[in-house]
């Protein structure tokens, strides 16, 4: 097995999951409680990566991060190197690609928190952020686990975006799923089999972890059916 690719994949999945949780918690909180008309649009944009061919996403990211756009040029200037074909570029792509897998379970979990709990907290002097930290998050722990596991597993399994934005640079952007593709191209079926089995195992264990969660004391929210 390609250990360099394995370590890179795990690092990518961990970093992506961490960033996703930081971004998705406030976003999902807004989605769960807003009355804004922009909600439907934001919801649709967040869900796009589920239905969009990964190559489309990868293509636009490649263009956006490259020298063709002002944004890409500024970014390249600031970093000293282009974001595409680097690990950081992979992280950006993975975060966008796995966003719905973090936002959706969290938003569902937050929305399922009993409104009377939030009303009670408000009359006790607890403001918006405080309610999120001290009431909503503890009551939707299950959704946090779901969001983390799904983001992690989904990042491990991504292929199209990673290939488009990262190329296939050993040690920098070659993840396990790309290594598997290379192995098959080179007719190294025994190696390919080991890589494929390993990926299969990780995903299976992740999903078993998800389904073995004890239902939370109160919030039965954010569970997958």
């Amino acid at each position, binding site marked *: 097995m390609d250990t360099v690719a394995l370590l890179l994949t795990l690092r990518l999945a961990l970093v992506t999951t961490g960033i996703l949780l930081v971004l998705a918690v406030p976003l999902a909180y807004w989605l769960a409680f807003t009355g804004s008309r922009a909600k439907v649009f934001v919801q649709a944009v967040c869900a796009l990566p589920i239905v969009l061919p990964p190559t489309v996403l990868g293509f636009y990211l490649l263009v956006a991060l490259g020298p063709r756009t002002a944004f890409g040029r500024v970014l390249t200037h600031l970093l000293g190197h282009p974001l595409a074909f680097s690990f950081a570029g992979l992280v950006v792509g993975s975060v966008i690609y796995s966003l719905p897998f973090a936002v959706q379970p969290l938003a569902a979990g937050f929305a399922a928190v009993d409104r009377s*709990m939030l009303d009670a907290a408000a009359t006790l*002097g607890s403001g918006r952020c405080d309610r999120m930290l001290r009431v909503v998050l503890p009551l939707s722990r299950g959704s946090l686990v779901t969001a983390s596991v799904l983001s992690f597993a989904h990042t491990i399994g991504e292929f199209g975006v990673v290939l488009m934005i990262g190329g296939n640079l050993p040690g920098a952007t070659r993840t396990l799923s790309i290594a598997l593709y290379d192995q098959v191209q080179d007719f190294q079926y025994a190696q390919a089999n080991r890589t494929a089995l390993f990926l299969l195992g990780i995903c299976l264990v992740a999903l078993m972890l998800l389904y073995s969660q004890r239902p939370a004391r109160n919030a039965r929210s954010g569970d997958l059916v």
Partner: protein
Amino acid sequence: MSDTPSPNPPSTPWLTMHIEHRFHHGGAGFHLHLAFAAHAQRTVVFGPSGSGKSSLLRAIAGLLKPDVATIELHGTIVCNTMHGSQPRIFLPAEKRRVGLVMQDPAVFPHLTAAGNVAFALRGTERSAQKEKIARLLEVVEAETLAARWPRQLSGGQLQRVAIARTLAANPSILLLDEPFAALDAPSRQRISQNLHQWARQRGIPVLTVTHNLEEAFTAGDEVLTMEDGRITAQGAPEQVLSQERERLLQMLGAVPSS
């Protein structure tokens, strides 16, 4: 908090309000339309279920944004939707210092009874917090429940914890929405007494909502009757509730019907 209202002497109204609100659930809809001022230390709003009592409390607490409203607590406008020279104001619930005990106690399931009370004691020193929690649980006769989780408590015990938690937030007024419904008669009386005593000592006015005639008689210095989203009478309990009392006595066959 320096910008929060402080209790006034009972002669000036602690609450002045005018609200109009239309609920659009179902086909018929429901119209809340009322105006009144509350002066008494203990005020009761008496009316049948569905007359809009809970919505009235939610509007005062800031959990309901009425279509049209002016609400003044201890001389401070907390909600004003009127056009004209006055600016629009809507102070959110967390800034109103209104203690609200709802029918649904909504005790946080991820915290113990003591943890629930401590939720409202943020910023208090740890040692002082412990003492305060014990004192507040004593008011509702729940001192032995401190370490219990909500799932281990009965409906009546949950209501007691909810009351203690509300007191912990140091409210400037107390709104009670049938808070003793799940308690047996003797504890209801004792805890109600403790609670009113606690409030009186601190000069905190109490507004109780009930459809229980006995509670309306005992928990109010002044009574408002409510029907179909409107206030139908306001005054001393004997005066306002006499008709209701006679009707009940007739139903029991105690006095011959005229």
